[in-house]
């Protein structure tokens, strides 16, 4: 059934009429099926960023410590001592919906490859997860599979999973989000890039054999699901973390030599995107002989091999005189190694299979004439600010706290992170739950990296610009809260169908918000990923620009966590007006999801954060927790639970209703535990930073200002109930 490439097939492959016309123009003849396949994946949303590129340009990407910003496999920032951190976040949303375990597992595998491709040893993984309503029949199975898959892959490969986030919302019923982040360490002068060079140099394939896995996965990741999602399923990719582990070790061993000219992992669109990108970036040509590709199945066509998304594979250009030494390393690790082509000076990709030229495409127009859309946008009007005084509190503080701490969005995530090996590597200074950011020491150094992922989708849905700004600010705040200097972020922009103006409007606004925060906080974006078409039957997810933040703390011993100790003063730093709009209290207790989300005052954010960091590094702070979901009382309760110590809280200001003061989600705030509040508050006043004592720690219960007391034990019971009972273990 040899099909002719034509406009109809192009449409099946996801290219529209204009795009197909451009293919004809570039080729000067009808393309072969393989050629059409190459165009379709390279011009898919996933690979070409055709809808998002015009907006992404607004994001700041530079700072003195940025070595490589967006455009490489991962972002690279200098962290001192001749080392840099290499990191990126990527989505595996669609595959995780189809097959939660393998989808999530291969997501972890893919992001690991993006990082070790650059020469970095992965030292930490994080994952940002959004699931549907717990009451939806599919949610439990998806949570189970995704968490098992992330653990199954990360644990086996031996990289600690140290942080992440989990939210639930009905908008994710048909489209869970699985965003995985990897962080690695490499010497600054040993970073590997993908631009091919050296006419005649061998193009080498290493790793697993090629099968018919995930063909058109990249195209599918760029299309909306309908009721026919089942029918669209490509062969599901199965992760092989054991092979990935061998691949990491073999690649790093080879990278210690001077054999590699260029290297690129085979991710989405496999051999096509890796070879096209390597040759394209290097301004050279590439000739591939598919007969040499290690194959797992028989009778594969050129089209299938070029589009296969089999996992755990890499493509490299080697110095010819080092080919044998390289082969020996891969043999030692038991991995396939095959010379499948040469670098040429033709500026074209030429693919041969069984003596036939199956594809011959000029690379420059393939890249330069890739579609670029300025899609129409409409922005929803901003919601009105909700006046806190107009919302009544029927539950009281103690009961409200208990309800909030038990809700799926605020309950303990221990059930999740206890399935992830968080200590492997022997460098995890702050494990999940111990601090606002995970802290992982750099082996052999005093310094550590601080890592976090953040986004509040309900804020983004209400006001995408404010939400985008808030996501970046919260990441910055979480790094600051452990004492780290925030350096840079990676992002994963998860949105619906970009052809809908309101989705594209939200996208544009979120980026605007992110950019303003990055600018003000000197917190550039160095890598990222866009995932569009997160819709099922026309229903889009909440806009979710997930932010992965990275910071550095020069002396890991100075990092602080959230755990309270007895007999300390609790001080709230940052300004409070009692912002209930879009708060969890409003949703869980007030039963409404409305109002404007809390605004972020960027200059104040920076001033407050810089002050807090200075105090932490000066050694006067015993514990620190930023105030986020659930507000002030939830922050204090989380500190109490982490330290297994109670606290007594004083009455808040008279001009703010109690529930608004204690549950409002005003931004830019931290709760600090200090031995001497008077000295601390004086220092804050001198710096012009709002700081007020809100109580002190001690005892076995939490006493709230309206008189109620709850024991830490019953708070813990409420906090830890949801996941085990929902998941049945």
């Amino acid at each position, binding site marked *: 059934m040899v099909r002719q490439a034509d406009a109809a097939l192009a449409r099946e492959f996801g290219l529209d009429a204009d795009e197909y016309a451009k293919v004809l123009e570039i080729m000067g003849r009808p393309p072969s099926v393989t050629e059409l396949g190459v165009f379709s994946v390279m011009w898919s949303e996933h690979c070409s960023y055709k809808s998002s590129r015009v907006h992404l340009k607004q994001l700041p990407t530079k700072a003195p410590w940025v070595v490589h910003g967006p455009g490489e496999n991962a972002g690279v920032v200098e962290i001192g001592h001749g080392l840099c951190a290499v990191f990126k976040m990527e989505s595996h949303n669609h595959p995780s919906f189809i*097959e939660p375990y393998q989808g999530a597992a291969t997501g972890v595998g893919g992001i690991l490859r993006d990082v070790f491709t650059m020469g970095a040893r992965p030292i930490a993984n994080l994952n940002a997860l959004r699931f549907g309503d717990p009451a939806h029949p599919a949610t439990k199975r998806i949570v189970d599979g995704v968490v098992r898959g992330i653990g199954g892959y990360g644990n086996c490969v031996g990289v600690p999973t140290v942080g992440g986030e989990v939210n639930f919302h009905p908008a994710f019923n048909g489209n869970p989000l699985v965003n995985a982040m990897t962080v690695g360490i490499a010497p600054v002068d040993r970073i590997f890039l993908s631009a091919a060079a050296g006419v005649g140099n061998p193009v080498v394939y290493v790793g697993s054999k090629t*099968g018919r*896995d995930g063909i058109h996965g990249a195209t599918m990741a760029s299309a909306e699901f309908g009721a026919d999602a089942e029918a669209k399923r490509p062969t*599901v990719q199965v*992760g*092989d973390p*054991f*092979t990935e582990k061998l691949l990491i070790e073999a690649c790093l061993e080879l990278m210690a030599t001077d054999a590699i000219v260029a290297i690129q992992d085979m991710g989405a669109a496999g051999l096509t995107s890796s070879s096209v990108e390597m040759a394209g970036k290097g301004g050279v040509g590439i000739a591939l002989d598919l007969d040499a590709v290690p194959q797992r199945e028989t009778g594969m066509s050129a089209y299938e091999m070029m589009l296969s998304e*089999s996992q755990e594979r890499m493509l490299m250009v080697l110095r010819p005189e080092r080919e044998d030494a390289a082969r020996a390393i891969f043999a030692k690790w038991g991995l396939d190694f095959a010379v499948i082509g040469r670098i040429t000076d033709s500026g074209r990709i030429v693919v041969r299979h069984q003596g036939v030229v199956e594809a011959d495409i000029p690379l420059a127009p393939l890249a330069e004439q890739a579609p670029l859309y300025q899609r129409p946008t409409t922005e929803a009007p901003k919601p009105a600010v909700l006046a806190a005084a107009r919302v009544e509190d029927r539950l009281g503080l103690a009961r409200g706290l208990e309800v909030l701490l038990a809700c799926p969005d605020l309950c303990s995530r221990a059930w999740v992170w206890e399935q992830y090996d968080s200590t492997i590597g022997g460098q995890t200074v702050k494990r999940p739950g111990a601090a606002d950011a995970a802290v992982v020491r750099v082996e052999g150094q005093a310094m550590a990296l601080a890592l976090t992922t953040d986004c509040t989708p309900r804020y983004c849905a209400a006001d995408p610009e404010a939400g985008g700004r808030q996501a970046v600010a919260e990441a910055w705040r979480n790094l600051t809260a452990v004492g780290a200097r925030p350096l840079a972020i990676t992002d994963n922009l998860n949105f619906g169908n970009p052809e809908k103006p309101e989705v594209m409007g939200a996208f544009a606004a979120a980026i605007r918000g992110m950019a303003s925060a990055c600018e003000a906080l000197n917190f550039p974006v160095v890598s990222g990923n866009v995932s569009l078409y997160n819709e099922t039957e026309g229903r889009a997810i909440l806009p979710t620009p997930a932010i992965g933040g990275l910071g550095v703390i020069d002396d890991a011993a100075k990092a602080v966590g959230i755990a309270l100790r007895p007999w300390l003063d609790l001080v709230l730093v940052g300004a409070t007006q009692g912002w209930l709009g879009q708060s969890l209290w409003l949703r869980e207790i007030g039963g409404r999801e409305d109002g404007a989300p809390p605004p972020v005052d960027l200059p104040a954010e920076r001033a407050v954060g810089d002050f807090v960091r200075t105090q932490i590094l000066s050694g006067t702070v015993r514990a620190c927790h930023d105030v986020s979901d659930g507000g002030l009382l939830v922050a204090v309760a989380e500190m109490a639970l982490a330290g297994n110590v109670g606290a007594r809280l004083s009455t808040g200001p008279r001009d703010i209703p109690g529930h608004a003061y204690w549950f409002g989600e005003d931004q830019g705030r931290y709760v600090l535990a200090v031995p001497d509040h008077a000295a601390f508050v004086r220092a804050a006043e001198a710096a012009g930073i709002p700081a007020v004592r809100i109580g002190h720690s001690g005892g076995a219960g939490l006493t709230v200002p309206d008189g109620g007391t709850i024991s830490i034990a019953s708070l813990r019971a409420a906090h830890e109930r949801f996941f085990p009972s929902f998941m049945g273990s």
Partner: protein
Amino acid sequence: MKATVTVMLKPGVLDPQGKAIGQALAGLGFAGVGEVRMGKVIVLELAETDPARARTAAEEMARKLLANTVIEGFTVAVDGA
């Protein structure tokens, strides 16, 4: 009545376990081992005494729970003992 459900990855789906077993067998000196695939077998004690109905029930259990039909296929054997 006993029903045995055998669940194997569908043809074409990567089977890392089978692959690793094949390599290990070769390492142990077993020659002439080609492809190796690994699957699961679930043996169910059923109260049902009619073989046809037992098979139908086991098939339904496989579809609903025992096999992940996205990547796995299954066969059912019923054996009255």
